[in-house]
């Protein structure tokens, strides 16, 4: 079962079996974002309740495979209580840990890019467990599904 244990780490299965911050929120006041994986139909719905520029509360709903749901659950614990800027930095660091740059996900401001690159030191903690998906390129889309919704949501929240 070469590599399969790398994909299905215990911490991932734990988040899959017992998802954190599962639920919905009323919108408004919460902000709702949704993402599909067009290949398998999985979806992640992300609710963010903002307090100023802080993520006061977060909920996740939707359906999908162990990787997409565990990754969203882990994301929710990582960003809850953080400022938008911190959440953005975590998002970037997470994608970087999968060898993806934010650029690939949309147009990046390269000046900003350079700036953020400096605080490389975001501690991913449990999220590092997801690096096993790199051996399974198709599953990268599963792992990043919730995070792409986060990017979009933060962009919209920043505009408000």
């Amino acid at each position, binding site marked *: *079962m*070469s590599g*399969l244990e790398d*994909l*299905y780490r215990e911490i991932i*299965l734990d988040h*899959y*079996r017992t998802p954190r911050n599962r639920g919905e929120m009323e919108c408004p006041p919460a902000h709702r974002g949704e993402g599909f994986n067009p*290949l*398998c*139909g*999985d*979806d992640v719905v992300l609710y963010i309740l903002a307090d100023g520029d802080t993520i006061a509360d977060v909920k996740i709903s939707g*359906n*999908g*495979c*162990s*990787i997409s749901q565990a990754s969203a659950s882990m994301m929710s614990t990582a960003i809850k209580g953080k400022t938008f800027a911190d959440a953005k930095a975590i998002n970037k660091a997470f994608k970087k840990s999968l060898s993806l740059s934010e650029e690939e996900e949309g147009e990046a401001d390269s000046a900003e890019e350079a700036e953020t690159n400096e605080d490389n030191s975001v501690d991913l903690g449990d999220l590092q467990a997801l690096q096993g998906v790199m051996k*399974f390129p198709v*599953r990268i889309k*599963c792992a990043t599904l919730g995070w792409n919704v986060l990017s979009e949501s933060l962009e919209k929240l920043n505009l408000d």
Partner: protein
Amino acid sequence: MSVNTLNSASLKADFPLLGRQVHGKPIVYLDSAATSQKPRAVLEAMTTYYDDYNANVHRGAYLIAEQSTTEMELARQKVQHFIGAPAQEEIIFTKNATEALNLVVNSWGRSNLQPGDAVLLSLLEHHSNIVPWHILAKERDLELRWISVGDDGHLDLSNLDKLLDGVKVVGISAMSNVLGTVVPVRAIADAAHERGAVVVCDACQLVPHRACDVIELGVDFLAFSGHKMCGPTGIGVLWGRRELLEEMPPFLGGGEMILDVSTEGFLPNELPWKFEAGTPPIAETIGLGAAVDYLTDIGMEAIADHEESLTAYALKTLEDRLGESIVIHGAAHPRGGTISFAYRDIHPHDISQILDQHGICVRAGHHCAKPLMRHLGVTATARASLYLYNTESDIDCLAYALNETAAFF
């Protein structure tokens, strides 16, 4: 069962890919509904084209150009006879079934449908036979109606007469790529014709697996893809009744499809070229011709019989060995060898990932049939689909490996 049964274990030797290993295990390919494997004969026909007589068709007076033209048109005749089409001019080559269906919607649809007209589709349809209609419906203000699906995986035709009221065109899949349902196309087509509606049949899953005759099916258009019937990628077919095709305006414009072009306008070419703009997929057409020969030599009856008995074996084996932990979605007999299932509460994506470690290839997802998935109340299923080269041993591997999957979650 037919006397002429297949020896699938030895047929496997015709397919180079089926000799390979995956993660150190012999490959068990159970995703032929997505795309089939290709026999050596098909690859050789294409290699011979490229190595011996690669030249653009319908254009050159030199020997190899004549040869490529002749071979391409020969492939058209092979396809014609394979589906019982009355004339070779009715066979139009496209890049895939999706383009074939879009051709009908754009050319026939745009010139025949008016605001308020109704289009009847079934919930079994693949996105290819839905999205083009959505696009036209929005542009033309058409009404889309849906034939529903019962618990047995078959179409609910009880209210067909009412559904057909005011319908100008019916888009119907002949065999579901999710549930394996064999659809009573003839009965639907006859009812539609009584109301003066035109019938567009998506035969992607029928043509590779069953002997098929467009006259017996009674439809007006038939679309299918080469890559699901032992042929190469990059080639699809649209068959249409000549009277309809003659009246239809061209779809794509360019070389080959014209009789004359000036700065003022153009005259379209005759059938079938009117609908074949630009350099066609030449090697792919020739490859498809070879696939038709391959299937014909084996015999479509024998293939259908084999799939029928192997499907029965698979359904029984999965139930026997996995019991209540497996749920097979639809379809009751008559059905083809496409088996969608849920196993415990393990997500199909995860099932497929773990089966892969055993060398087993199954699809996980919505199978480009999201309206059906919504109707079934699932976002994804795992799907094993059979073809002529599959054996009982392939099924045994699947049942064994599924059992192993449970250990993980």
